[in-house]
């Protein structure tokens, strides 16, 4: 065995270098230390205009529609003259359909909740940073590209982040498929 190693040392080193690098990448990518956990769930909203496509007035509409007051979600009356996308059609006639979701951070899954249910939640914080220091943050990922011929799809996703740690959120929205990213509004931590 020793003789084999001695005779083939350079070959072993040549193979070991990339294998070691791959192991480092695996550990850094899948290690629980690089993942992020929080003890809080959060609610968010997403919006579409009924056509199945993107509407860039949605985010403004969501911002105007919901706010947090006294730790509760409230729905505001929309100014009938407000025209977020300046297309001469007031927002109230735009057919915007806003949905509210509760995201379970432990299971990393979302479920839709009615406003009547959501308004009863106690919202601890409406900042994107949770009380235990975890952020909800968007990041554009252009996807790994290997050689000019292989180019995987790019996406815009949301993550729980803390320091260098990052965990992708499985949200229900369309931001990952569109260049304009106005289809997610973080509301608050529960």
């Amino acid at each position: 065995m020793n003789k084999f190693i001695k005779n083939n040392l350079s070959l072993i080193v040549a193979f070991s270098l990339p294998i070691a690098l791959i192991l480092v990448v695996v550990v850094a990518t899948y290690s629980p230390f690089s993942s992020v956990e929080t003890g809080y769930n959060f609610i968010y909203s997403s919006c579409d205009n009924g056509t199945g496509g993107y509407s860039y007035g949605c985010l403004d509409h969501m911002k105007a529609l919901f706010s947090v007051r006294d730790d509760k979600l409230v729905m505001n009356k929309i100014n009938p003259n407000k025209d977020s996308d300046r297309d001469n059609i007031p927002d109230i006639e735009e057919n915007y359909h806003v949905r509210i979701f509760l995201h379970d951070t432990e299971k990393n899954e979302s479920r839709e909740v009615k406003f009547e249910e959501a308004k009863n939640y106690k919202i601890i914080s409406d900042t994107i940073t949770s009380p235990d220091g975890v952020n909800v943050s968007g990041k554009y990922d252009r996807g790994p590209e290997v050689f000019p011929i292989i180019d995987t799809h790019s996406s815009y996703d949301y993550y729980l982040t803390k320091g260098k740690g990052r965990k992708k959120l499985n949200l229900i929205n369309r931001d990952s498929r569109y260049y304009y990213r106005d289809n997610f509004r973080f509301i608050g931590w529960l």
Partner: protein
Amino acid sequence: MDNKTLLQELSGKIASGSISRGEVMDAISGREEKKSMSHVSLMTILYFVGAVIVLIGIIFFIAQVWNDIGAFVRVSITLGLGLIMTMLGLMLAKEKEKHAIGLVFQFIGGLLIPGGSMVLLSEFSTGVVHMWPIAITIGIIFLFYLILDFTQKNPVLTFFAIGNGTAFIYLLIGAIIEGRPTFKYDDLYAYVTMIIGASYLVLSHNFRIGWNRSLVWILQLVGSIGFYVAAFSQVENIFAGQILYFFVLGAGLFLSIYMKSKALLLTSTIFLIVHFVYITGRYFADSLGWPISLIVLGLIIIGLGYGSVEVNKKYLKR
């Protein structure tokens, strides 16, 4: 070393394939290597020119009929043809050991197989490009060539084993990080390229004796270029890194002497010159002015060129 030990070691090397019986016989009979080399080179060049023409013909033919044929035929004329060419090459290499004809068929096969397997994948794919299937496919081809090379021991198979192995490493890392942007892709791929470049240099050291000798210079050339370019991309905007890069290039020069590598000497010298030009342009052109900078730079380049030629004469010429 006594005669018995010498013969035992020689038998061991023949058995392990690191040296062939033909090479031993050539060395014993004192055959004129140069004459034989020029003869083989001409034949080999003709074979490989023919192979390239055949390959271009195949590509044009496939392109012409691509839209008129079904999935099965598409896979057959790419992957299938590649496999047939490789097998034919292996048989010819066995029958006509002295000729490069077998290697030429293996060469054509080696170029067709990866493309053919991508055709196979795309015919079964749903349209969305994911890294894992591509990585696994290229990994299988890498294993295929590794096993073939282990049993057949020829440089063309080694070449394709290394090529597919390299592609596999990039693809595997791409698959691991897909959808998990823990790393900046450009930085990570730069590090991968540096590691692969270093591996090539180590491999070339291993290949200096044995059936892969013809691959030594190409591994050193490609490995060192890859390493230097990737390393430069990481130090481009860091002053300390730019200084460190001089030491990296200096280490490359020393390594070229240790490995007796003209390719490494050439790339190290060229990258050293380029780095001097870069540093001059970035830090001295504005303060000293371009004319003075050019004079200093010219002298540095002359010095490096002279040094490189002297190193070559003194340490590398055999």
